[in-house]
């Protein structure tokens, strides 16, 4: 009977209160998202007035040329930006972790500055810069703008991962006669791959979701989906906006699921997965 006492204590009023609070907070977190998903199936002409179930807004959204173009731009920009960000970020991360010199610290401060500065400040500095160098190509502007921010994120993720790895593994490979390139390819790369993949997905989804940088640097006609939705929202609530947002939400969730699965497979702990996904290192 003595073992029952601590068990009972864990169920006292305080825990009950915490539990209830958690449930309420989860409801708070998910209600708005569910509302958009549900209302995207609203048959009625006005988005906010429920008028029965129907998928007609999906048809409207997918036929809208503005949405089609914006979605295509978004996907192209997101992919190109992910590649650039991963290449630059991985190189920077490796350099910082393995060949640190007197420039490492100032460089790291710079990386943090980029991430910490309010996005709107990043955005106007890119805009000014692009105008100065006379770069008018919207696609290139978007890719550069997004990839600067994202390569900073990738740098930190790769750096954190490499610092967690034992450098003696690479040394062992070298002792066994592997060339530096071979040691990198067969030892370092497979070990840091989860971090690189996570960084790539993070960069991809950031780009797909970004409003602020995109709306500053893109030119009319070459905008991304969020910028399109954002400017359309200001003129009125439309069902096709909810529909296309639901489609992107579904895509993001699939990507997120894949990433969590990949990270878990590579033996990352729950806390590690959370750290990687939120970019908190």
């Amino acid at each position, binding site marked *: 009977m003595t073992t029952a006492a601590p068990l009972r204590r864990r169920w006292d009023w*305080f825990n009950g209160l*915490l539990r209830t*609070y*958690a449930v309420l*907070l989860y409801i*708070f*977190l*998910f*209600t*708005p*998202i569910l*509302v*958009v998903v549900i*209302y995207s199936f609203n048959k009625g002409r006005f*988005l*906010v*007035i*429920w008028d029965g179930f129907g998928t007609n807004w999906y048809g409207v959204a997918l036929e809208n040329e503005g949405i089609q173009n914006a979605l295509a731009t978004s996907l192209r920009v997101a992919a190109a930006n992910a590649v650039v960000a991963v290449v630059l970020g991985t190189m920077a991360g490796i350099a910082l972790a393995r060949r640190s010199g007197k420039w490492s610290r100032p460089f790291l401060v*710079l990386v943090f*500055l*980029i991430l*910490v*500065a*309010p996005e*709107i*400040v*990043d955005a*106007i*500095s*890119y*805009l*000014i*810069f692009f105008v*100065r160098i006379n770069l008018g190509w919207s696609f290139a502007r978007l890719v550069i703008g997004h990839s600067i921010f994202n390569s900073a994120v990738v740098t930190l993720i790769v750096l954190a991962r490499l610092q967690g790895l034992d450098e003696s593994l690479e040394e062992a490979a070298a002792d066994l006669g592997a060339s530096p390139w071979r040691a990198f390819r067969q030892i370092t790369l497979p070990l840091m791959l989860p971090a690189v993949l996570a960084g790539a997905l993070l960069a991809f*989804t950031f780009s797909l*979701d970004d*409003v*602020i940088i995109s*709306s*500053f640097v893109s030119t009319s006609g070459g905008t991304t989906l*969020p910028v399109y*939705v*954002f400017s359309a*929202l*200001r003129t009125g*609530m439309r069902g096709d*906006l*909810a529909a296309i*947002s*639901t489609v*992107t*939400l579904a895509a*993001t969730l699939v990507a*997120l699921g894949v990433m969590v699965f990949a990270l878990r497979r590579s033996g990352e702990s*729950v*806390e590690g997965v*959370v*750290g990687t*996904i939120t970019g*908190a290192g």
Partner: protein
Amino acid sequence: MWYLAFFVVPLIVIVVYSFGYKPPATAASSIGLDRLSFDNYTNTFSDTFNRTFIATIRIAVTGTLLCLLVGFPLAYFLATRTSARWRGVLLGLVIVPFWTSFLLRTFAWRILLAANGPASEALQSIGLLDAPLRVLDTRGAVQLGVLYNYLPLMIFPLFVALDRMDPSLREASKDLGANRIATFIQVTLPLVMPGVVAGLLLVFIPLAGEYVTPAVLGGAKGLMAGGLVASQFLAALNWALGSAMAVVLILLILAVIAVFGAAGLIVRTMVRRNRRVEVATR
């Protein structure tokens, strides 16, 4: 070098631009720099803009503290009251909203809070409201929107800090006769302080520069400084004034962080001194 070219140089350019002026519409360039002055700063501190900046700081500070108050219990629950298995699932459920499009999360509230939307109808039907809900396009809506949007960003660092804490420390405190509140204030809180500070910074900085949420939910009444900067750059094409506003915004953010940081340090030293007195008088 990459970052230097793309970030530091533009940042300096912003500061320089903020002393320039708006060229006549006929000019090819979007900024005039041959005549530098503090005019833009004088304009920034004019009455109308001033009010927006004050409102921005108020919304950002309130929003950040609300995030802490609302998020802490959940982070505490996740870190101390869940089994390893449930913890992963429940954390995942915080990550999903965080990864959901910012825009979707924001405009969801436009549906939810609309005068003829679901919340309004429900409240009227149970008699809590006798007229349609009128929250949209006010500062209240912006405040709610930012709380909702930034909450996950607060929960993560809090969770990580609480999770790293050794549970035996709390038990030891209990065994030594401290009640719940004393344990919380004297053991838990000091140990998770780094997480709290990280969360506050992580939420406050982007929130103060916020541009999307007020634009979607705030209408004309809920304008924030980020919106001012954006309208100068994208609509009024007055880059000089926009740059000055951006500089003021950055300085304000740094000032608020400095004030709160100093306040935190003072409180800490006072608490320590009190403790020492307690020990000495015993």
